[in-house]
């Protein structure tokens, strides 16, 4: 990371800490905002957060590594999380999963080489009456069929396309 980018991130984290409070209880909200903006939380970001909150960076890493929605390793701009739990399983999640892999050319747990899409399993999304369900970032799709996999991915590319390009250049 360039020094100027590091400084920018540092200032951003300071602002986040100022807003959420310089307490340990502010750790999750701060990390969640970083996650949302950058799709992962880097070593450098964790060190700055630790310095700002006066805790050891390993404490921050412990928290980041614990929660499924916080990521240390880089993830795609669009994180597709397909529910793998029982009701969505009974409703046919396996074929949706297969087709998502076919469309993106990656397996679950991987990110496309262009950094746009990550494919992940999720535990119960609370859409059990309308499965199979998946989340694309914070957007929910229900009653997904294998046929719709392509359309959902295209929707990401077009609807959020401008946003994605900006982020990639930021």
């Amino acid at each position, binding site marked *: 990371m360039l020094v100027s980018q590091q400084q920018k991130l540092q200032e951003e984290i300071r602002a986040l800490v100022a807003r959420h409070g310089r*307490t*340990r*209880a*502010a*750790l*999750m*909200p701060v*990390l*969640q905002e970083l996650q949302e903006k950058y799709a992962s939380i880097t070593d450098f970001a964790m060190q700055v957060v630790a310095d700002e*909150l006066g805790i050891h960076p390993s404490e921050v890493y*412990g*928290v980041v590594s*614990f*929660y*499924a*929605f*916080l990521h240390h390793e880089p993830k795609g701009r669009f994180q597709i999380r397909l529910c*793998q*739990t*029982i*009701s969505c*399983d*009974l409703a046919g999640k396996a074929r949706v999963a297969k087709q998502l892999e076919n469309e993106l050319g990656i397996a679950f747990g991987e990110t496309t080489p262009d950094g746009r899409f990550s494919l992940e399993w*999720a*535990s*119960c*999304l*609370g*859409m*059990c*009456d*309308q*499965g199979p369900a998946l*989340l694309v970032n*914070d*957007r*929910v*799709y*229900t*009653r*997904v069929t294998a046929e719709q996999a392509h359309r959902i991915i295209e929707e990401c590319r077009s609807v959020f396309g401008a946003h994605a390009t900006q982020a990639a250049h930021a």
Partner: protein
Amino acid sequence: MQPSDSRKTPLTFDTIEPGSGLAAALAKSRADIIGEVSASNLKGRGGAGFPTGTKWNLAAAARVHGEAAKYVICNADEGEPGTFKDRVLLTAYADLVFEGMTIAARAIGATRGLLYLRGEYVYLRPHLEAVLDRRRKAGQLGADILGTPGFEFDIEIRMGAGAYVCGEETALIESLEGHRGEPRNRPPFPVNTGFMGQPTVVNNVETLASVTAIFAKGAAWFRGIGTEKSSGFKLFSVSGDCDAPGVYEFPLGITIAELLERVGGTGAKAVQVGGASGQAVPASQFGRRIAFEDLATGGSIIVFGPGRDMLHVAKNFMEFFVEESCGQCTPCRAGNAKLLEGIERLERGACSSAYLNELVRLCETMQVASKCGLGQSSPNAFLSIVTNFQDEILGRTPADR
């Protein structure tokens, strides 16, 4: 497709005018508020079934440490597989939930409330913030609520981040405090030593909405619904092999057979009551009642049709627990992984009865020795399938897969 409305029956919550419950509660003394909740016999709707009045009473009596305050936390970390009624409540009846929190705050003397919303429901957050804003403007949150001198209370929304275990109240508190969601030893219980070490009430979303309904319509009305030990109505999240999956309201004490009739699930071979941590009830036991005295549940009902492979079901649940165990205590961390291995062995048709008995003994160890409800209840699904569907799981050949 975009999510559709899950409600399949009219809900009692439709008939509760927002504001009426809070107004009725604020007309009472603190002791009488708790007395009313106790008289209603309301028990926790998250599944554990602890009497709400007792919990409030303990928190009201607890001493605050230093100059800080007491807290009311709404547990909106709905993560039990097959459960989605809290999503419906937060979408359509958020006022009743916040009102229940406000009544709880009045009862125990809390000044701050936190709603811990599961990360998967982040799309509900703007809606919930808007409801909170409206309530602040209407004088239902903030200082001197509804003209009650000295009654100050406000609510903040905090997000979870995809950890099932954070639905356990002490893990939830750990998470709010900025730690890994690892459950604490209990006692001390949160009513004495909760968020930031202060007395804290943690209630489920539906429990809090039910409190509001109780104050709007009276404890006697609530107690008149359901059975003697299980008062009131309950929301059920129904999914799986039935004609009309969705959210239903029934009085507690309904039998599984009656429920299946209503949801279009007759002919099922088994029903999972209580989600992954509950049990698979076979058709021969469909006369059993859903109530705290028989089958207690947070409301998750998953219907398995005649063609379903129960070993596949058990495997899905065990994969869930292996993924969601926090890893802190050994019985749960290692036990769930061992049970999953056992299921894979059964799948291959390579499990002796002696080994299956070993697995059952491991289940018993986990139930006794795990630190929190996750590890104590994760063997339930496996045990109920071993007990009720033994002919389906032993001696499998490739054709059975």
